[in-house]
C-alpha cells in the first residue's frame, strides 16, 4: 500500500478511456458547430491582385466569407513575434489572412464558414483570387544567393545572424596539428502528429465569454494571444486543450491564424465555429523543421582531442519567424554534446525562403547540431585511424568536471551549464549493449558472405526543463479525491499518470484517488507550455512542491483535531495517522471537511468530521489569519537553468551491395534522464523518438520544386515509417540525478530522435567506406554516391 509510485512502470490512468473510444480530441467536440475552411495560396510568392467571392455566395450552407480587408483592428494586424532576439534583426510574421502578398504555398488568403466542412470546401473552390506571381526563393542555396528576396525588409534574405565564440578559435585552429573541413547538409521534415491542428470556439453572448478549445501545446499562450487580438479581458476567455493527438513541436506555435479567426467568427456569428485541419493543410500551412547547410572546420591533435571547432550554419526558417530563432540557437549550442573542444565558434544565418515556416520539431535543432558534431568525430577518427568511440571518449566532459559551463548562452538566454551526466559510463554501457568490440569480426564475416554491414554511433546532450516556470495546484475534496492541475498541456506523454505518481507519493494517497488535469486555463491560469522536454521536470516539481504544501496543511489541521504535534503524523493510504499508533487516524477527506468551516454536511465525510469538531472559540475567526478555507495548495517551480539529460545511440545497418537498399539490423540506446518517474513511459518516449529519427534519417523529407510547390504533401509521398520500417529498439538506462530540482529528474521527451540521423549516417559510412555528408539518405541517393565514389574524378570533389 505504501509502495513508492515513483519509479514504477505503472499502467497509465488515461488508457482505459483512450482504448475504448472515449478520447475527446478536438474534432470530437462541437458536432453542430459551423465549419471553417480556407482558400490557401497556390503560389510560393505572389502579390494578391484581386479576390472575387461572388461565385461562392450561392453555395448552399454558406455562412460567411472573409478576406483580410474584413478583419477589424488587431485581428488584421501581423501575428506576434513570440520570441524576439537581439540578433533577429529582420523579423517578419504573417497575418491571419494574407493582406497583399503571399509567401508560401498554403498561406491562408480567404476564410469560409459554412454549415459543414463539405459546404465550406465547396465555397472555397468557387472563390477566385488573382495573383501576380513573384520569383520564389526556394532552398538554402537560393536564399543565400539572394538574387530574389522573400521580404523586402530582409536584405540578403537574412532574418538573423549570430556569432558565439568561446576561446580564440582562429589562434587555436592555426596552431592545431590537424585540420579538416566538412560540408554538411540536412533536410526538412515535419512533426506530423497523427491529429492535425484544430480550434473550436463557443461564444456565450449572455456572459460575453469565450470558451476556446485548441489542439495546442500551450493553452495559456493561446488564451492570452486570443484575448489580446479580440480585445477581450483575459477573464472572459478560457482555453482548453482536449485530448491532443500528438504535437512534437508544431502545436507550441501560437496563435496560429485559425486560433484567432475561429473565435473571432464565433463571436461575430453568435454560433460555435470549428476548424479541423486536414492532412493536406497540415503539410502546407503548419510548420516544418531541420533544413540546414553546415560547414565545420575542426583542428585537433594527434590523439584526436578537438582544439578548435569553427562551425557555420545556414538555417532555413521558411517564410516567417513567429518563433524567433530558437532552432538555430539550439543547434549552435547543443552541437557541443558531451564534448569540450578547446575553443569553439559558431556563426549562423537564419534565412527566409518561400516555404512553410520553420519552428521546433522534437529535438528542435539538436538533431542538426549532433549530426554536425558526430560527423566531425567520425571524420577525426577516420583521419587519425583511431577507433570512433575512443575519439569521442577522449573529448568527453568528465563527471568530476560537472557542473560544466561552456561559456555560451543557451536557448533560454541563460548560461549553457551542464549539471550532471556520466558520459564515460554511458559509453561503456552502449558499447556493451551493441557489442562494439565484437563488431569488427562480425563485419568481416558478413563481408565474406558478400554482405555489407556498418556500425554507427552518436552521442548527445539535451538541455531539458527550461524555465521560466510551471505551477501545480492541488485540492483535496471531502471524498478524499485529490484534484491536481497544472497548466501545461499533454499530447500523449502520460502526464495524468506520472503526475499522479508524484502526488501519490508526496501525499501518501492511493494513486486511484488522484486526478490530474492539464492544459485547462480554468484550472490553472499560469503556465508556459509543453516543449523542450520540460513537462515532467517543470510541472512534476511544481506539483511535488504543491503537494508538500497541501500535506503540511493537512497535518496542521489533523494535528489540532487529534491533539498531537504535526511532526508525529504521517499520511498513509489516504489516512492521516499518528506514527507508531495507526489506530489514531482520520481520513484526508475528513481533514478536507475540517479545513472548510462550513456547517452543511452533505456527505459521509462531513458527518464523520463532526466527531472532531473542536471547541468553538468565540474569540477566534473561523478561518485563522494566514489560513485559507479548503485543503488546497499551489506552488510554482522556477529553475535558474535547464537540466541536461544525455544519451548515446548505436546502430548496425546493412546496405544491399547492388540496390543500395538500407536496413537497420540493430538499434541500441543508452539514455540518462535521471531517476525515471515511470520507466515504461520513458521507454515509450525513447521508442517514439527513435522512430521519428529513423523517419528523418531514411524516409522523410519535404520535397519542394523550384517554384515552391511541395511535391509530397500527402502520406502517400511523405514517407512516415510504418512498423515495418522501424527497427526493434534495445535500451539501457543510466540514472544520474540532477542536483537542480527537488525530484532530481531530467526531461526525456525529445531524446530518442536527437542523434538518429548522425548514427545512421555513421553506420552507412562505416558500411560503405566513404563519407556521408547529406541526410536523409535514400537508396537512390546512396546508389548515386557509390557511382561517384567509384569514379575517381568525382571522388576528388567530395568534401572532407
Amino acid at each position, binding site marked *: 500500500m505504501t509502495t513508492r509510485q515513483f519509479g514504477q512502470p505503472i499502467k497509465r490512468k488515461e488508457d482505459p478511456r483512450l482504448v475504448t473510444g472515449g478520447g475527446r480530441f478536438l474534432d470530437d467536440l462541437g458536432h453542430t458547430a459551423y465549419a471553417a475552411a480556407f482558400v490557401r495560396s497556390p503560389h510560393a510568392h505572389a502579390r494578391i491582385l484581386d479576390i472575387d467571392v461572388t461565385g461562392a455566395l450561392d453555395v448552399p450552407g454558406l455562412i460567411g466569407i472573409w478576406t483580410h480587408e474584413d478583419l477589424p483592428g488587431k485581428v488584421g494586424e501581423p501575428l506576434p513575434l513570440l520570441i524576439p532576439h537581439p540578433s533577429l534583426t529582420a523579423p517578419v510574421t504573417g497575418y491571419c489572412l494574407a493582406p497583399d502578398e503571399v509567401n508560401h504555398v498554403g498561406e491562408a488568403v480567404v476564410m469560409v464558414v459554412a454549415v459543414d466542412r463539405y459546404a465550406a*470546401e465547396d465555397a472555397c473552390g468557387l472563390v477566385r483570387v488573382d495573383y501576380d506571381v513573384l520569383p520564389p526563393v526556394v532552398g538554402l542555396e537560393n536564399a543565400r544567393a539572394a538574387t530574389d528576396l522573400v521580404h523586402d525588409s530582409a536584405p540578403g534574405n537574412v532574418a538573423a545572424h549570430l556569432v558565439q565564440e568561446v576561446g580564440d578559435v582562429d589562434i587555436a585552429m592555426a596552431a592545431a596539428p590537424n585540420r579538416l573541413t566538412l560540408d554538411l547538409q540536412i533536410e526538412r521534415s515535419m512533426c506530423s502528429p497523427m491529429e492535425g491542428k484544430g480550434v473550436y470556439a463557443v461564444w456565450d453572448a449572455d456572459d460575453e465569454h469565450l470558451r476556446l478549445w485548441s489542439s495546442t501545446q500551450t493553452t495559456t499562450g493561446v488564451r492570452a494571444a486570443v484575448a489580446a487580438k479580440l480585445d477581450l479581458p483575459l477573464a472572459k476567455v478560457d482555453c482548453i486543450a482536449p485530448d491532443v493527438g500528438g504535437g512534437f513541436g508544431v502545436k507550441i506555435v501560437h496563435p496560429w491564424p485559425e486560433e484567432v479567426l475561429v473565435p473571432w467568427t464565433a463571436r461575430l456569428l453568435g454560433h460555435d465555429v470549428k476548424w479541423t485541419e*486536414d492532412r493536406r493543410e497540415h503539410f502546407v500551412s503548419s510548420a516544418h523543421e531541420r533544413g540546414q547547410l553546415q560547414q565545420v572546420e575542426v583542428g585537433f591533435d594527434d590523439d584526436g582531442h578537438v582544439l578548435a571547432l569553427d562551425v557555420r550554419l545556414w538555417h532555413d526558417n521558411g517564410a516567417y519567424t513567429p518563433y524567433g530563432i530558437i532552432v538555430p540557437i539550439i543547434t549552435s549550442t547543443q552541437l557541443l554534446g558531451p564534448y569540450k573542444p578547446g575553443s569553439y565558434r559558431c556563426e549562423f544565418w537564419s534565412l527566409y525562403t518561400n516555404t512553410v515556416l520553420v519552428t521546433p520539431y522534437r529535438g528542435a535543432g539538436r538533431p542538426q547540431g549532433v549530426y554536425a558534431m558526430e560527423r566531425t568525430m567520425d571524420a577525426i577518427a577516420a583521419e587519425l585511424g583511431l577507433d570512433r568511440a575512443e575519439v569521442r571518449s577522449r573529448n568527453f566532459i568528465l563527471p568530476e568536471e560537472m557542473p560544466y559551463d561552456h561559456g555560451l548562452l543557451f536557448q533560454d538566454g541563460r548560461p549553457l551549464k551542464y549539471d550532471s551526466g556520466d558520459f564515460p559510463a554511458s559509453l561503456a554501457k552502449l558499447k556493451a549493449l551493441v557489442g562494439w568490440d565484437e563488431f569488427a569480426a562480425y563485419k568481416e564475416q558478413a563481408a565474406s558472405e558478400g554482405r555489407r554491414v556498418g556500425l554507427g554511433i552518436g552521442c548527445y546532450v539535451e538541455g531539458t526543463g527550461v524555465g521560466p516556470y510551471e505551477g501545480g495546484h492541488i485540492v483535496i475534496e471531502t471524498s478524499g479525491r485529490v484534484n491536481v492541475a497544472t497548466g501545461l498541456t499533454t499530447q500523449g506523454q502520460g502526464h495524468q499518470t506520472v503526475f499522479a505518481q508524484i502526488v501519490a507519493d508526496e501525499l501518501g494517497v492511493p494513486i486511484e484517488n488522484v486526478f490530474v488535469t492539464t492544459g485547462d486555463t480554468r484550472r490553472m491560469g499560469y503556465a508556459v507550455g509543453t516543449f523542450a522536454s520540460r513537462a515532467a521536470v517543470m510541472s512534476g516539481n511544481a506539483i511535488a512542491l504543491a503537494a508538500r504544501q497541501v500535506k503540511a496543511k493537512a497535518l496542521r489541521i489533523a494535528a489540532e483535531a487529534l491533539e498531537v504535534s504535526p511532526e508525529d503524523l504521517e499520511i498513509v493510504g489516504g489516512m492521516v495517522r499518528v506514527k507508531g499508533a495507526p489506530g489514531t487516524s482520520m481520513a484526508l477527506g475528513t481533514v478536507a471537511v475540517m479545513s472548510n468551516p462550513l456547517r452543511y454536511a452533505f456527505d459521509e465525510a462531513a458527518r464523520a468530521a463532526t466527531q472532531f469538531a473542536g471547541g468553538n472559540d468565540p474569540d477566534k475567526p473561523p478561518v485563522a489569519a494566514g489560513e485559507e478555507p479548503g485543503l488546497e495548495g499551489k506552488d510554482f517551480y522556477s529553475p535558474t537553468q535547464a537540466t541536461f539529460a544525455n544519451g548515446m545511440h548505436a546502430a548496425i545497418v546493412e546496405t544491399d551491395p547492388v540496390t543500395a537498399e538500407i536496413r537497420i539490423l540493430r538499434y541500441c540506446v543508452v539514455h540518462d534522464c535521471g531517476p525515471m518517474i515511470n520507466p515504461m513511459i520513458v521507454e515509450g518516449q525513447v521508442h517514439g523518438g527513435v522512430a521519428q529519427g529513423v523517419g528523418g534519417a531514411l524516409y522523410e523529407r519535404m520535397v519542394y520544386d523550384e517554384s515552391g510547390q511541395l511535391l509530397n504533401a500527402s502520406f502517400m509521398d511523405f514517407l512516415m515509417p510504418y512498423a515495418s520500417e522501424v527497427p526493434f529498439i534495445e535500451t539501457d538506462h543510466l540514472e544520474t540525478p540532477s542536483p537542480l530540482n527537488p525530484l532530481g529528474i531530467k526531461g526525456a521527451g525529445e531524446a530518442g530522435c536527437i542523434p538518429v540521423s548522425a548514427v545512421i549516417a555513421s553506420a552507412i559510412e562505416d558500411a560503405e567506406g566513404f563519407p556521408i555528408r547529406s541526410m536523409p539518405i535514400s537508396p537512390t541517393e546512396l546508389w548515386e554516391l557509390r557511382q561517384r565514389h567509384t569514379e575517381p574524378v568525382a571522388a576528388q570533389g567530395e568534401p572532407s
Partner: protein
Amino acid sequence: MKPAPFVHHAPTTVAEAVEVLRAVGSHGKILAGGQSLIPILSMRLASPEHLIDINGVAGLDRIEVRDDCVRVGALVRHTQLLQDESAYAALPLLRQALVHVAHPAIRNRGTTVGSLAHADAAGELPSVLALTEGVVEAVGPRGSRDIPASAFFVGPLETALAADELAVAVRFGRFPEGTRTGFAESARRSGDYALAGVALAITLQDKVIRSARASFVSVTDVPDVLDLSGAIGSYAAVPDLDAVADAVRAHVSPDTDIHATGDYRRMLVAELTRRLVTELLSR
C-alpha cells in the same frame, strides 16, 4: 478534403448499370472499391457529377477457374482473390503479386478489376494482366467486347475502356504446364507503390527453358511483356543472368520522381529480375 457533391446511382444489375452509364456518359464515374477513386474525390482532383456505384450489382463477385484462365468478376476484392485456393493453384502469380498490393485493409475493399481499370503504372495488377495475356470483358451501351491486355493499357492511368463502359470481369490467362512464376518488387515502405517491380514466368521442360517472359511495374509507361527467352539461354542450370539484366535495362524507360531516379529504377528492376530468375530456377 471532402468530395464535391455527386449523384449516387446504385444499380443492382449490369443492365441497370449500363443504362445509367448511357444516360450520364462522360459525366459519370464507376465506383468499385473506391480505394483509388475516393482519395481523388476527397482531394477534389476529380469531381464527377455522377457516381455509378457497382457494389450492389449482382453476380460480379465470382472467381471462376477455367481451363485456360482465371476469370475474376468486377466486385472481387483483392483479399478474396488472394485467399482463393483454386485461383492460387491455377495461377500462382495472382497471389504472388497481390500480397504486394497495399495493406490488408485496402485489399479488403479494393477490387482487382478496379486496379486494372485505374491502370496505375505503379500498380501490380496491370503487369499481371500483361504477362498472363489477359482479357478485360467490357459492357457498355454499344454492347459487350473483350479487350486484350495488349490493347487495354493506353497510357498512364488511361485504358481502352470508354467512359460509359463497365469492366464486368477480367480473364487472366493461365500458363502452360511447367511454368514457374514469381513477382518481386521494391518499395520505400512496405505496402507502398513499388519503385520498381517485375512479374516473371519461366516455362521449363525438363531442364530446358522453353520460354521466359517478364512484365514490369513502375518502369514502363504501360505494362507490356518482355520476352527474355533468347537472353536467358536454354539451360536452366546456368541462366545468362547478365544478358537478362541487359535486356531488362534496355526494355524499360523509367522516369525520375521524388522517390528515385530513372537510372536507379533501371538498375533496380534489372537486379530484381536477375534475383527472381535465380530464385525461380532454384526452386
